[in-house]
């Protein structure tokens, strides 16, 4: 975990604003940006893969079995790109932060 925040004393900040934990942005949740929310209807999903790479926020988990699971709502900003590319109606956008 990144132990730096805006109360951290000066001497404990990394110099130059360097970050030594690459990829730690994952600790910053963007899910509360959503104003509409994708709902994954697994039963309709054919695992075609068309939504796998279109998510700007990397919020569609894909396992080693090449199958996707439900959205990662910690990060999903609700843009709806995934719903629009799904040919099977397996992703439905609903108003609001939560499904």
């Amino acid at each position, binding site marked *: 975990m990144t132990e730096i*925040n*805006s109360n951290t004393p*000066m*001497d404990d*900040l990394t*110099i*130059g*604003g*360097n*970050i*030594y934990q*690459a990829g730690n942005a994952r600790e910053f949740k963007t899910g509360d940006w959503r104003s509409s929310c994708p709902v994954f209807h697994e039963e309709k999903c054919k695992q075609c893969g068309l939504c796998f790479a279109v998510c700007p926020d990397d919020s569609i988990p894909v396992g080693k079995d090449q199958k996707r699971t439900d959205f990662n709502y910690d990060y999903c900003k609700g843009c709806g790109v995934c719903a629009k590319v799904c040919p099977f109606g397996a992703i439905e956008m609903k108003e609001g932060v939560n499904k």
Partner: protein
Amino acid sequence: MSIRERLSGNEAVATAMKQINPDVVAAFPITPSTEIPQYFSTFVANGSVDTEFVAVESEHSAMSACIGAQAAGARAMTATSANGLSLMWEMIYIASSLRLPMVMNLVNRAVSGPLNIHNDHSDAMGVRDSGWIMLFSENNQEAYDNNLMAHRIAEHKDVQLPVMICQDGFITSHSIENIELEDDETVKKFVGEYHPEHYLLNRKEPIAVGPLDLQGYLFEHKTQQANAMRNAKKVIEEVSKDFEKLTGRKYSFFEEYKLDDAEIAIVCMNSTAGTTKFVVDELRSKGVKAGLLKIRMFRPFPTVEVAKALSHLKAVAVLDKSDSLNGAGGALYEDVVSSMYVAGNNVPMVNYVYGIGGRDTKSDDIESVYTDLQEIAKTGKIDNPYRYLGLRKGDAK
């Protein structure tokens, strides 16, 4: 073992760079520093160094490439002058704020405009608040020696700031003088190897450099830089002492020339100090108690030490080879005056802007300053502290 040679200031710097053998040099030609990358690229072409020489398309890219190289974990060096430094300006601040201990040789020249390729210090003065350590050199020997010391100062864990080494364009960069060089092995040993703690090329610990640094952090990051600059003083002192042990050549924050018992003194930087020493000797032979304080370490500025060294004087003249165009006085003058004021030293002080655009400053000119100082010492009066030396039509009004 020291080796006696005859080299120009640029050759001396290139020789130091060859002995330092940095991993990357990125540079762009600009008078009067051009010879440095020229000589150096010959070393590269002949396989005398391990350096990757990046012949960039501009000085902005030279500094950017040095930043990329140093952040990647390499020792990076460059050289430039005047407008080249102006073009780098944005990156100069970024290099120091990213705490990258690179070394740059600045062969001082007038910044345009109008265009002029000759020496003054307007280039250096433009970056005096950029967070670089700035060392000034009277001659080829000092330029060489400062290079040998620079990496150890820059890379010290309490510092981690870039170092800029200044010398006067043409006056020293192109004049061939005697010099004592150290042998390659001695230099290698003195400079040491560079082992950064965090660097881009360390795949075991990928890092991110150069964030968007918002209101909650930038103030602290800048103050960390300011503290590193404060720490640099002690490190410069230590490295200079080590260097003296090795070579017998003594360096401090500044050089005091016949200052101890002086009544009047000049404060200046770079090659003018050589001319001033000559004048001091002449005046001393006539019984005038003249002295000189030559600043070597301009950033960080040795406020307390300068104030102490000048405290006993009856009058002081600060020579600025750059006009700040601010209606108040040159940059060095302001630093010296504020140092004195804070220390409670009430010595009459006067400023001379001189040598702009390579205007020759002769011993007669320097002597006229001491003549003025004698008058000020006698009366304690200064009509106009912001003066010009060697300018036609006398004082600017």
